[in-house]
C-alpha cells in the first residue's frame, strides 16, 4: 500500500450553496462516521492537503479562490466534488453569476451524489479519491523512471 493512500489529508471549501453539504463533510469527522480511521486529517492548509473536497456551485467571485487552493496543493492531488451543486450548479445553475459545477474551474476526480450528500457517500468518495491518488503517484514515478532512462540512453528528446 502506498503511503499517500494510507494518509490522505483533506482540505474542504464551500464554494456557494446552501452549506448543507459542507456540514455533512464535517459530520464525517464525528464519532459516528470517524473519517480518521482511514488516516484522514482535515487540515486548514492547502500545502499539507492531498484531497480537495469542494461543495457547492462555483460562481465568478469564488472561482479564483477554488483555483488558488487547487494550485497551492502539491502533486499528486485529487478533487472530490460533493453534492448536486458541485456537479452541475444544482438549483443555482441558472443564476446569472454561477459558472456551473466545480469542473468548470478545476479538474474533478470523484463526484459524490446527493442533495445534501450523505456522510457515508462522502467517505466513500474520499476513499475512492485516495485510490486515485495512489494510481497518480504510481504513474508519476513510472514517468520519472522513463525520463531518467531515456535521458541516460540519449534517446527520445
Amino acid at each position, binding site marked *: 500500500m502506498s503511503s499517500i493512500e494510507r494518509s490522505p489529508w483533506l482540505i474542504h471549501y464551500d464554494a456557494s450553496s446552501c452549506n448543507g453539504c459542507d456540514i455533512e463533510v464535517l459530520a464525517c469527522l464525528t464519532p459516528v462516521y470517524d473519517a480518521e480511521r482511514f488516516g484522514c486529517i482535515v487540515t486548514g492548509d492547502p500545502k499539507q492537503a492531498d484531497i480537495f473536497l469542494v461543495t457547492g456551485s462555483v460562481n465568478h467571485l469564488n472561482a479564483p479562490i477554488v483555483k488558488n487552493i487547487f494550485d497551492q496543493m*502539491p502533486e499528486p492531488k485529487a478533487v472530490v466534488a460533493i453534492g448536486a451543486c458541485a456537479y452541475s450548479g444544482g438549483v443555482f445553475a441558472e443564476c446569472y453569476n454561477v459558472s456551473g459545477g466545480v469542473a468548470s474551474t478545476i479538474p474533478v476526480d470523484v463526484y459524490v451524489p446527493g442533495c445534501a450528500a450523505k456522510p457515508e457517500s462522502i467517505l466513500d468518495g474520499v476513499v475512492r479519491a485516495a485510490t486515485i491518488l495512489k494510481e497518480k503517484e504510481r504513474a508519476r514515478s513510472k514517468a520519472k523512471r522513463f525520463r531518467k532512462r531515456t535521458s541516460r540512453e540519449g534517446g527520445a528528446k
Partner: protein
Amino acid sequence: MKGIEIYAAIAYVVLGPLLGGLLDGLDRVITARLQGRVGPPLLQPFYDLRKLLTRRIAPVNRLQMPLIASHLVFALLTGVLFFYGSDILLIVFVLTLASVFLVLAAYSTGSPYSTIGAERELLLMTAYEPMVIIALVGLYGVAKSFNFYAILGSKMPAYLYLPGIYLGIVYVLEMKLRKSPFDISTSHHAHQELVMGLTADMGGPALAMVELAHWYESVYLFALVLLFFSSSWISAILGLAFTYLLIILLDNATARVRWELALSFAWIATLVAGAGNLIPFYLISRGTP
C-alpha cells in the same frame, strides 16, 4: 559509567523517533476509543511522516527550511545532551532555543495564521519556562545533582517529596505536547478555531521535520517525568503510564482556553504547586541534615 551514557545518547538518536511515533499513535488510538470511535491504525504517525517526506513542494521562502532544520537539530541536541548526562540546567536553554527556531520559522512565512500561532507559542513558552526551572531546582533538592543519571540513580521517590512540582510538570507536558486545554498554538483537530496555526504554510518535508522534532521532544519530556518515579521499576512504569493516560484524559475532557487563561493558569500552578511545594520541602530538608 561514561560508556553507558554514550550508548543511551546513540539509542535516543536512533530509537527516539520510533518511540515518539508509537507514543503519538497510541495517543490517537486511545483518544479515538475515549470518543467511541475506531480511530486510526497504531502506526498512522509513521504513514503520515512517510507521505510528508515524499511530497514535493516549493518552500514559502528561503529562510523557512533552515529555521525548521535548526529546530529539529536543537530538539535532537536537547535529548542527546539529556541522555549523555549533561547538566540539565543547560538543557533547558537548548530546549528554549529549539522552540525559538520553530517560532521564527512560523513568523517567516507571513501567513496570518502562522503569525497568530507563533505569538501564542511565545506566550506558552513564557507560561511553562518558570515551572521547568522550579522542577529542576526541586529535583536538585532531592538528589543533590543536576545530572540525569545521578538523579535516576539516587533512587529517591521524588513524587513523594515533590507532588506539587509533579503536577506542575503535567501542566508543562500539556503545553509542550500540544494538548487541550493548552493546544492554542497549533492542533491537528479540525474543530478548533485555529487549526494548523504555528505549522500553517509548512508543507511536505518541512512539516515532517516539525513532526520528527516533536517525537524527539516527547521522548525526553517523558524521561523528565521518569525522574520523579525513579525509586523502583514498578513505580517508574506505573508513574509514566499514569502521566501519559492523565494527559490524554485531560486532552479529551477539556476545551481549548484563551491565551490569557493559559498564561494565568500556568503561572498560578507554578506559584501554588511549584513554589508551594519547594518552600516547605526546603524548610523540612534543612531541618533534617
